[in-house]
């Protein structure tokens, strides 16, 4: 290895460090009431962190076939915006009906890849799970092209390895691409990072998960 070349293995994370990073992450979440919590697997020292959020989306995002049922089952909020500001040429009012979706995010540790993995599931308020196509339309357009490049499509439906239920997962084999530049930079500046904070700040926004900036400044790296 050349002098100054970082061991590529440091893109990885051992399970103990994962748990420590999560603990520190959770402490800050508690402080800013960001809603994350630790789920312990009964009888083991394994676990994951999770968070549930309600996200308003445009009704057009949901499958046409479900639009009728959506209205029937009262997932439409009272918040109907009508754009009546444009008075110029007698423009018709445009109504945007907002629906509310429930997103549940889980961060698990993968012992095979030795990195964290993001799982999530989405449903309407009445419990109807969203299909992959519907979830796709909630992915920011900037990320869509990159995710679609394959070879193994990066956003797929998978069985949650601890709960056994269908979730969506961001494929872990691309993690090194995201993390390497960030970890390289930190090393060059002689800083130690909290792996979870750095990692989640990169992958979270791809699937609509907001990670407030204070995590980057307030959460320390484990010793």
């Amino acid at each position, binding site marked *: 290895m050349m002098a100054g070349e970082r061991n590529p293995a440091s893109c990885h994370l051992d399970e103990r460090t994962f748990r420590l990073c999560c603990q520190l992450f959770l402490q800050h979440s508690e402080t800013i009431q960001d809603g994350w919590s630790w789920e312990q*697997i*009964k009888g083991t020292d394994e676990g994951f962190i999770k968070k549930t959020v309600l996200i308003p989306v445009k009704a057009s995002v949901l499958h046409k076939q479900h639009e009728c049922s959506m209205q029937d089952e009262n997932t439409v909020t009272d918040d109907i915006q009508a754009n009546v500001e444009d008075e110029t040429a007698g423009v018709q009012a445009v109504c945007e009906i907002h629906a509310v979706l429930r997103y549940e995010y889980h961060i698990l540790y993968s*012992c*095979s*890849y030795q990195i964290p993995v993001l799982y999530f599931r989405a449903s309407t308020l009445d419990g*109807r*799970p969203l*299909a*992959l196509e519907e979830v796709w339309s909630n992915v920011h357009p900037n990320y869509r092209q990159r995710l679609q490049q394959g*070879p*193994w*499509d990066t956003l*797929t*439906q*998978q*069985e*949650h*390895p*601890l*709960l*056994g*239920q*269908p979730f969506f997962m961001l*494929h872990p*084999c691309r993690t090194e691409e995201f993390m390497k530049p960030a970890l390289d930079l930190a090393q060059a500046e002689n800083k130690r990072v909290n792996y979870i904070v750095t990692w989640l700040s990169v992958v979270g926004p791809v699937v609509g998960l907001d990670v407030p900036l204070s995590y980057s400044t307030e959460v320390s790296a484990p010793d």
Partner: protein
Amino acid sequence: MTSLGVKDELSSNASCRHLMNMIMADDKDVLRDVWFGKIPACFTLSPEETTEREAEPYYLLLPRVSYLTLVTDKVKKHFLKVMKAEDVEEMWFEYEGTPLKWHYPIGVLFDLLASNTALPWNVTVRFKNFPEHDLLHCPSNSVIEAHFMSCIKEADALKHKSQVINDMQKKDHKQLWMGLQNDKFDQFWAMNRKLMEYPTEEGGFRYIPFRIYQTMSDRPFLQKLFRPVSPEGHVLTLGDLLKELFPAAICAEDEPKRFQVMIHGIEPLLETPMQWLSEHLSHPDNFLHISIIPAPSD
């Protein structure tokens, strides 16, 4: 001696209608026995489905190493004949009320749920009320391919830090999938043998890719890092794995056996080295799928 024992068991396994002539206790024969293992199944349409007339059950020999949605086109065609298009959604299967996870190899599902029941395996076919909270969707074969390749990739991450799979070209990956899809043992193993190699000085893979399944558990499976050789250089066995992850499956000599530890429908000797099991009894996805089931009470 161990490989001989496994080979005998595989050949005489009642759920394997494929009868093999035992010539030599060659490890390569074990690979063939595993690949060509079959389970006789009887598919019956659920009474909850709406039909225009009664449907006859459909009998099929299922490959243990494949996936339900990959090998049941004929089942679908058969039952569609008695149904109206508007009553047909994504086909799914259940056994005694339990939805069958198509993304588990067929042999694993059978060993886990039905190995101690009479053959044929009675599977119920459904076309509506897809259990969204239990099963993954399978809209096309490319989803099965993606899942299969994802398992192979994960197995190689454990065995070789992904070096071997990443050194392969796209066409090599395709060959692995096509080999499985078209039941081409030689085509598959021409590529797969690379994934079974390791540096001689290491004595085995970095970690063994395995999953342990159990019906009476909230967890779908157990998976941990496990080295085939101990730090002192001892070759670790199936018994060593169970001692660490499922000690209840190991009982003293005078105790009645409480659990059966099953791989491809057989119970390998606990003295079998994990490295040997990984090289010879893995599924095409390169994982050792181990089912732990309650021992039948006679």
